[in-house]
Each structure stands twice: as structure tokens, then as C-alpha cells.
């Protein structure tokens, strides 16, 4: 795959919504011991709204540039999710959209650059760094490995596959961490031993991205 189109991104958002809906209960369960048991419900509400928005505007979608698409997703998340994850994921999509503003297609490395901007947006909005037991621990290694792969001229699907592995490791790395950001930080040492719900939802999002982009390659 050399070019990412709005169809790819649409499929990504569809798959993201589907995966979040499927994992809703798991995400609620993960948010119980170290949170307030709403992460799955929050994201499900938000991504369903994104999907509804996209369906309602189906006709105009093919003409929309990638940036507009991502920003629509981001503002919809901000307007419907609430909690911590609403502004954070919202910012992620809006910042990524800013990078792709006006573009009808994007190269893999342009997409990776947009995602990197998204992750920086999360870090800025949440005033958080890797290692604080948040979604950043999934997303930061994901983007880093993706960009590294692409800069070495690795095939996109391969680079993406490696990035997914890094994302999964990042997600798992939150288990032994003591949280210093978000609700889990209130627990102090008791936050250790639990996988972060946001790191987990981020993993499902990058899986959705892979599904949306790699299937196309094979098709």
C-alpha cells in the first residue's frame, strides 16, 4: 500500500467502533480495580457517535480530505465521550487531522507523521509522559516503531505489524507500573499489577488501523 485514502480511514473508524463495542465490558472491567468502571462505556458512546456521524454524512465523505475526516472524528469524540479519554482521544484525532489537512491521499510516512502528532497532542493535553501507566504507553512505542520501520524503507504492512507488537508490549508494560497520572494514580502502589484500561483501548485502536490498512493491501 502506497497511498492511504479516505476509504481506508473510514474503515479504520468503523473497525475501531466495532472493536470498542466488542471490548466494552472488558474495558469497564479493567477500569474497575484502578478506575471508575466507565472507560468501556465512555468509548463505546463516543465511537458509536463517530460512526453515526459518518453514516449521516455518507454522501459527502468521498469528497472530504483526510484531515477533515480525522478532525470530525476527534471533535465528535470530544463532544460525546467526556471523562479523561474524551479530550485525550479527541485531541489525538484532531492533531492527526491537522497534519493531513487538505490531503485526499497520504503516504504511509505521512500517516505515521500524523499519528505521531496525535500522540504528542495526548501528551500535551494530559501533561503525561511514557511510563506513567496510560494510553501513551501503547501509542508512543507504536508510533516510534512504525516511523522507524518506514524510515528504513520497510514495507508498510511489515512496519505496521512490528508497531502492533510494540503496542502490545507497551500495553502489557503498564501492568507492573505504578500510575502517576489519571485516576489510577490515586491508588499509589495499589495501582501496580493491573493493566491500564486506556492502554488497552489504544491497543484495540491500532489493531483496527491495521485491519483497515492491511486488508486493503491483500485485496
Amino acid at each position, binding site marked *: 500500500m502506497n497511498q492511504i485514502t479516505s476509504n481506508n480511514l473510514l474503515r479504520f473508524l468503523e473497525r475501531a467502533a466495532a472493536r470498542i463495542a466488542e471490548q466494552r465490558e472488558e474495558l*469497564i*472491567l479493567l477500569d*474497575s*480495580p*484502578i*478506575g*471508575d*468502571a*466507565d472507560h*468501556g*462505556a*465512555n468509548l463505546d*458512546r463516543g465511537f458509536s457517535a463517530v460512526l453515526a456521524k459518518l453514516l449521516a454524512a455518507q454522501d459527502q465523505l468521498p469528497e472530504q480530505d483526510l484531515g477533515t475526516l480525522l478532525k470530525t472524528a476527534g471533535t465528535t469524540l*470530544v*463532544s*460525546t*465521550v*467526556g*471523562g*479523561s*479519554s*474524551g*479530550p*485525550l482521544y479527541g485531541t489525538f484525532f484532531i492533531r492527526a487531522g491537522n497534519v493531513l489537512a487538505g490531503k485526499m491521499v497520504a503516504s504511509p510516512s505521512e500517516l505515521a507523521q500524523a499519528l505521531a502528532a496525535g500522540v504528542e497532542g495526548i501528551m500535551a*493535553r*494530559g501533561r503525561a509522559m511514557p511510563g506513567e501507566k496510560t494510553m501513551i504507553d501503547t501509542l508512543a512505542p507504536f508510533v516510534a516503531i512504525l516511523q522507524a520501520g518506514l524510515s528504513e524503507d520497510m514495507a508498510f504492512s511489515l512496519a505496521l505489524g512490528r508497531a502492533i507488537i510494540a503496542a502490545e508490549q507497551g500495553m502489557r508494560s503498564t501492568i507492573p507500573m505504578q*500510575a*502517576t*497520572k*489519571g*485516576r489510577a*494514580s*490515586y*491508588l*499509589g502502589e*495499589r495501582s501496580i499489577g493491573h493493566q491500564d484500561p486506556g492502554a488497552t483501548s489504544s491497543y484495540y485502536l491500532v489493531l483496527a488501523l491495521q485491519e483497515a490498512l492491511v486488508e486493503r493491501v491483500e485485496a
Partner: protein
Amino acid sequence: MKKLINHPSMVVQDALIGFAAAHADLRVQHDPAFVARAQSPVQGKVALISGGGSGHEPLHAGFVGYGMLDAACPGAIFTSPVPDQMLAATCAVASDAGALYIVKNYTGDVMNFELAAELAEAEGYTVATVVINDDVAVRDSLYTAGRRGVGLTVLLEKIVGAAAESGADLETCREIAERVNANGRSMGVALSSCATPQAGRPTFDLGDQEIEIGIGIHGEPGRRREALQPAATIAELLAEPILADLPFQAGDQVLAFVNGMGGTPLIELYIMYAELERILQGQGITIARNLIGNYITALEMAGCSFTLLRLDDQMTQLWDAPVQTPALRWGR
């Protein structure tokens, strides 16, 4: 989980319908959801706008009315409201005197209110924000998201509400709010967790003889688990870190607030108040004002929190000023 609800997804909306039907002097808007005084904006008056996840009732919507809030934005259960709600509320109640956002210090609340303030300012509104962080159970922000905003919120909304009602300008309101925040401390204990409608089961499990010390208001676990103790001992466990933190001192006049978490009967709150009074008396601290009841809750969680606020004359006077809201009312 058994609840008097129609469906987990409809809880907040159905309750708002009931709230609208019950309180004709308030205006309830859905989507984006907010509750505001029917007569608003009040020209020349600073508008107080708060909000947060639902499940803490009567906070915040129950404190909208004369002498307290101008508007409240209810989020999903235990989930911060979205910026659209605060923006809509601001447009509905803010006059040229500006708006003060009253925010409890949770990552989500802070970010959503921040976004709202940016949007409101872009539309020409003047917005100031106070972030409440009174919970001594949480270590400082080097290691955490910072102390949570809990019981003090109720007292702050009342006191600053009275200031705004009396014509204080935005900066004065903000200063008083900061002073309240600087002089108030809280700590809570849970005897049970609570079940959010969407989760359908308690957020954590406690043994038959266990309590959680240092809980917040979201049904989340606290700082540590302990064996159940007599009320007198539990009162010490809550009061000591509060007293040591400010620190409160002999001769202080305080407002003592014993808050129920939602599932604890009033008779137990009075027992806890008796113990708190005894402890404070022993320290030479005078309870000049008090508040006892379920004012900032975590659904049906059993437990309570103590909040102490060191009063000065102005705060006392503002506390005593008339207030007329669904959940707090006196003087008119």
C-alpha cells in the same frame, strides 16, 4: 445490581426529566445537557458554572439556584461532562460579568473544562476557573494526578455563590474560591463500593469486616484497606490526616461537614459527627458551622467523608447568606 432505573443508558436523561418536572424554578436542557436558573443570565452578576460526572447527587444540579450555582452540567455516571455542555451553559447564564468555572480536580474534568473555557473565550466570554483539590488521601501531584476535589466542593459552591449573589466581581469570586480551597481539607471512608449502571456490578469488593480508607467519590478503591473499627476509631482515621495537613490549630473556627456517600443512613452520620466534635474539642478547635447529610455522593456507596474548612468572618457570613436550591436552602 438492582436499581430503580429504566435502562443503564437512560439513567441520567430520565433523572433530568424528573428534575425538570420537580423544579419549576430551574431550566433543564437536554443535549447538550445542563441545568440553569430559569431567570438567567442575571445581569451584572458573575455566573457560577460547575459540573461533573453524574452519580454524585444532589451535586451539582441540586445546588443550582439563588445564592449558589447559575448552571450545572451533568456528565454520564462518573464521567466528566463534555465541553459542549459547559459552553452551552455559559451561553445560557453568563453575562458581561463573566463566568467562574468550578472544577473538581480530576484529569477528565480539568481537561473538559479547559476545552470549554477555550471555546467560550473564543466566543467572547470572560471565564475564570477554580480547581478544587481538598482530598488529603491523595499524595501530591509529583506522584499523582493531584488531590481530588471532594466534599469541599459543596461548601465552596455555597460560599462563592453567596459572594457572586452579593455582587462580587469575577476576580473577587475567584479569590474567595481559592481561599476556600486553600483552607479546606477532606478525607473519606467506604464500607461498600457502588455499582455503576453501565458496569452492573460493584466497582470493587470489600469483605464483611473490611473498610476502604481514603476513597474518592467515584466508587473507586481508596488508599488502603483496613479492618472495620468502631465509629470513634474511624473518625480518628479520617480526622487526623485532615488536621495535620492544613494544619488546623487550636483556636481555629471551622465549618465541619460530615457527608454521607449515598448508602449510609443519617443516624450513622450523626454518630460520626459526635465523634468528630469530640476530636475537635480535644484539639481546641471550635465548630462554628456544620453540615450533615448526603450532599456529594457516590451512588449507593456506604461510607462518609469529613470536610473541615477553616473559616474567617467573610466566609462565615457568606455561608450564612440566603440560599435557595433543591438541596440546600435557608434564609428564603
